[in-house]
């Protein structure tokens, strides 16, 4: 894992030494033709399901017969999109609130923890950090049954009736996001925060909190971008917690999408448009902020 972070960091700096050839002109002519042919073949394969989604979403539901499934729509309609929007708008709003709050909370905790694990260590910090990381890998099935019971217990306390649906998901995603956010921030601070500055702050008599707010926090923006994107995407895309902890009236968009597409609903344009509507926020994040998304992937999987 250590290697990958090093390389991922290095990726940001163009280290390619030119060999006197322009990009894309290495190797023989045949080699290049084969290379590009393969690249485009795989491109088509990767995009094929997206093609199906997009063309079907603009068809009339009567025209989605088997024989025409792969062809372009004969006439465009946005009926499917309207129907999908109508059934998914409320859960979309809930997902948005849930994913944004969970992303902010885990990022804040991750930043505090990351700072301590990188630069303000205490005895046993390595062990605790490893115990945190294990929490990132566990199959959530292994905690789901008691988790469900515990959250219902909380909900049934007097005055806690509101604690349901996305509120449960906010708690769960915030907590299970702590390990990855801590990891990302720890790795970030380990490279971005020179020891000399911290020593100087110490000499000036700044305590830990003072050091955090005046030195660490101001340089933390890149870390926050990565953890926010990562946490937003994983909370948005989660289905397992949604299925166990929410229902069709208070669940997020993944739950609603599964309801919409499950069963024998024959309205394929609505279903396919629904998939696109439910994926649009994460796709937008990915397209606009893809560079950081990849940064999160790197540090997310590997230290």
């Amino acid at each position: 894992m250590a290697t990958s972070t090093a390389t991922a960091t290095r990726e940001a700096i163009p280290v390619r030494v030119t060999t006197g050839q322009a990009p894309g002109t290495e190797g023989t002519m045949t080699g290049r033709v084969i290379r590009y042919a393969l690249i485009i073949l795989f491109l088509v394969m990767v995009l094929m399901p997206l093609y199906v989604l997009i063309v079907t979403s603009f068809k009339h539901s009567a025209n989605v017969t088997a024989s025409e499934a792969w062809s372009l729509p004969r006439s465009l309609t946005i009926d499917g999109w309207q129907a999908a929007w109508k059934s998914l708008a409320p859960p979309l709003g809930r997902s948005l609130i849930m994913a944004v709050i969970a992303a902010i909370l885990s990022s804040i905790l991750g930043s505090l923890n990351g700072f301590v694990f990188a630069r303000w260590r205490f005895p046993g910090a390595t062990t605790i950090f490893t115990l945190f990381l294990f929490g990132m890998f566990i199959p959530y099935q292994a905690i789901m049954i008691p988790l469900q019971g515990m959250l219902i217990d909380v909900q049934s306390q007097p005055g806690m009736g509101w604690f349901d649906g996305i509120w449960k998901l906010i708690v769960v995603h915030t907590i299970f996001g702590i390990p990855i956010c801590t990891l990302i921030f720890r790795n970030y601070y380990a490279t971005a925060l020179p020891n000399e500055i911290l020593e100087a702050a110490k000499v000036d008599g700044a305590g830990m909190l003072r050091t955090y707010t005046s030195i660490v926090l101001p340089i933390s923006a890149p870390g926050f971008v990565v953890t926010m994107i990562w946490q937003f995407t994983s909370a948005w895309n989660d289905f397992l917690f949604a299925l166990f902890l929410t229902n069709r009236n208070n669940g997020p968009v993944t739950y609603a999408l599964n309801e919409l597409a499950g069963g024998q609903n024959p309205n394929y344009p609505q279903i396919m448009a629904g998939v696109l509507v439910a994926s649009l926020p994460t796709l937008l994040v990915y397209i606009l902020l893809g560079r950081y998304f990849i940064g999160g992937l790197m540090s997310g999987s590997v230290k």
Partner: protein
Amino acid sequence: MRKRAKDRLPGFLLVLPSIILIAIFVYWLIYRNVATSLDQTVTRATKRVLNPGGLANYSKLLGDGEYQHALFNLLVLTVVFVAGTMFFGLLWAVLLEKGVKGEGFFRSVYLLPMAISFIAAGVVWRWLLSPGVGEQAVGLNQLLAMMGLERFQNGWWQSPTQFSMAAMAIPAIWQLSGYVMALFLAGFRGISEDQREAARIDGASEWQLYRHVLFPQLSPIALSALIIIGHMSMKMFDLIYAIAGQNSYKASVPATLMWTQLFAQNNPTAAAVNATILLVLVAIVVVPYLIYTSKSEKGTH
């Protein structure tokens, strides 16, 4: 410089809220789940013993045909999923790593499926993997027919073979090959151009260059990718649930069987046993890796 305890305490206090949350939500809940898995239960009406209690619950589940079927499915899924993502991930990285024009664009497209949830991807793949052949062919089977490859039409995950779960790995490979590619690409970037030059000067062919100079340096990344993908496969639930529907026997793996045990069979004890075994399986893969990394980290400090 030696730090005094006075300096160290604030660090611990700052992490303390997270320590408490992780202790409760990860470790206490794991403990609760294990405790549930050891319960003795009897059916309410007939007083028949449903779970004998203690470790016998584990031997009961391990001996159960339905569970063994799910374990076998998981094995097939994992082997194909891991092999597929490693193959495409490495191939795509090799194709793109040497300054291809538009590399950034291709890389982004290959990674695109990762931004979509398993549940959303599952909806379209359920249709693509429809089992109808011949006149009834839709999805991939129809595409095969359009390309004149009718003889490859099949029932995909609903095929009447015991290895049908291999088809369920197709959408998973589609979603995660780009991720493995990104890992390998970062690995290639980390190898200095000098080494390639040196190998070329020594007269190494392109194949020899990759085989003896570049690939060996990627093995730590390959190990990471293997463990990440392997453990994702063991946890895979959403995609199977979306494609096969709930309570599918044909496509059941331990993670989906746990749902069936809990809600369709109303047997939380057996579900807890299943979940505990799943945790152990994941831990066997992940824990040595975590210990190895934390050791190698210490070495570099």
